[in-house]
């Protein structure tokens, strides 16, 4: 892993909107290819902005950012984004939504249909391809949203609190499945969440941000080997890691209110 250059490389990166105070300041962070990095921090600390910088939806205002060895704009073809809301097109079926990125690329219909079929099978929605979003549950919609992102075969998947609106059981299932999908179709993940438990379960490493301005307070490596299963959630070492990250997060929140 260390021989390859990092796939995401922040160097003293900063972001401010207009003349306002900086949202992010002095972010220096490397993400290695294939790594799963979670970003956690108090609300308003710029977690989502961090993802928007990587995806070139928002330009940085100071420092440097390299993605897949180039600028974020040029790296877009390697990226896919999953938002907190499933953001499916309601007039397309589940399969139509999964195919969308391929359609935008001009992939022929038969080819993209076959590809979407495979992805729907991967996210265990093989039978639901013909259903419209309003016929799907919240968890199913999120699976479709992730399948759509995976249809781009991204090297980097950016996830902005994708499971934040789901109930805990569905969320835990999707956490396990996300790791499973990643084992089958490898990608580097940059994952924003509010849940420490989720971050620990999923990640190689957790980046704790402090707010005002958003900056890196701590980087916590997670010591558990993949594949991880639901059993990890009952491991005392898992609890200890969750407690450790929670302490850092509280420190970040206290610093904010101080």
């Amino acid at each position: 892993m260390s021989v390859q250059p990092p796939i995401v490389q922040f160097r003293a990166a900063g972001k401010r909107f207009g003349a306002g105070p900086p949202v992010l300041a002095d972010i220096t962070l490397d993400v290695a290819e294939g790594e799963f990095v979670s970003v956690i921090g108090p609300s308003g600390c710029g977690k989502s902005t961090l993802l928007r910088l990587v995806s070139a939806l928002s330009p940085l205002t100071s420092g440097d950012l390299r993605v897949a060895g180039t600028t974020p704009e040029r790296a877009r073809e390697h990226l896919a984004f999953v938002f907190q809301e499933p953001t499916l097109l309601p007039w397309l079926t589940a399969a139509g939504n999964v195919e969308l990125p391929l359609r935008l690329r001009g992939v022929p219909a038969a080819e993209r249909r076959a590809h979407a079929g495979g992805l729907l099978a991967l996210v265990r929605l093989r039978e639901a391809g013909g259903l419209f979003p309003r016929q799907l549950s919240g968890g199913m919609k999120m699976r479709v949203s992730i399948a759509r992102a995976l249809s781009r075969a991204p090297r980097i998947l950016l996830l902005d609190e994708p499971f934040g609106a789901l109930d805990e059981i569905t969320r835990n299932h999707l956490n396990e499945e996300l790791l499973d999908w990643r084992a089958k179709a490898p990608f580097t993940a940059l994952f924003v969440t509010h849940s420490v438990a989720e971050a620990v379960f999923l990640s190689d490493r957790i980046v704790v941000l402090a707010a005002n301005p958003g900056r890196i307070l701590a980087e916590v490596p997670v010591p558990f080997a993949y594949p991880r299963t639901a059993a990890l959630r009952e491991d005392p070492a898992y609890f200890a890691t969750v407690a450790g990250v929670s302490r850092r997060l509280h420190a970040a929140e206290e610093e904010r209110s101080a």
Partner: protein
Amino acid sequence: MKSRHWVLWLPPLLSGALFVALWYGVRAATGLQSWILPTPEEILAAAVREHALLLRAAASTAVGALGGFLAAAVAGLLLALALGGARWLRNGLYPWLLILQMTPVIVLAPIIVLWAGPGLPGIITVTFLISFFPIVVNTTQGLLSADAHMVDLFRMYGATRRQELQLLRLPGALPYFLAGLRIAATLAPIGAIFGEYLVGNAAGGTGGLGFLVYSYNVQIKIPALFATGLIGCLLGFVFVAAVAGLNWALLHHWHDSFERHDR
């Protein structure tokens, strides 16, 4: 769920019966004569008596209404595409659209006769002017209402502007366009009748319902005048029903307004 279907049909039936009863009551209490307030049965009798004339007039009005309505739908959609595409165009044209909408059609009528000519072209123009505004405003709003995250996603995934329009903005604007059509459908027959009243007479002889309004009025055939109103109303229902059907056909698969709450 089935047992509650009466909620759909009983209240309008009851309110209708109450209205008719009130009508007879007012007539009996005031002793107004038929040529001031005809009873429903006198109106129906007039409708039957004059049915040949009324039907021919309704057909003529329907042609004008449909022509103006379709022109408004096409032009409304095209203009909305232009307005939705460029802010400068929106800012530049919107005040003029408002001015056009605010100017009473009755003032424009002589100009319309002058420019579009009397008869059908003038009637279609009046109908168009009356029904085109809600289509433009609604559709433009729809084109601008695409979900911000979806727009981000399209940009990130390298969509061209054409793809963004075709796959995101246009389908998203469809419910808005149809809502505009629904308003226009109620306005188009009124616009056509109004148009016939204003500019249609110059066509000579073969007027529509608007011409009959004029003609029955001067002949003081008041029950027949009411019957003309009734036919105009029915024509409006035909238009609204057609748009409702189109709305169902295009949206029922996916749109939340067709969500069944009894699942």
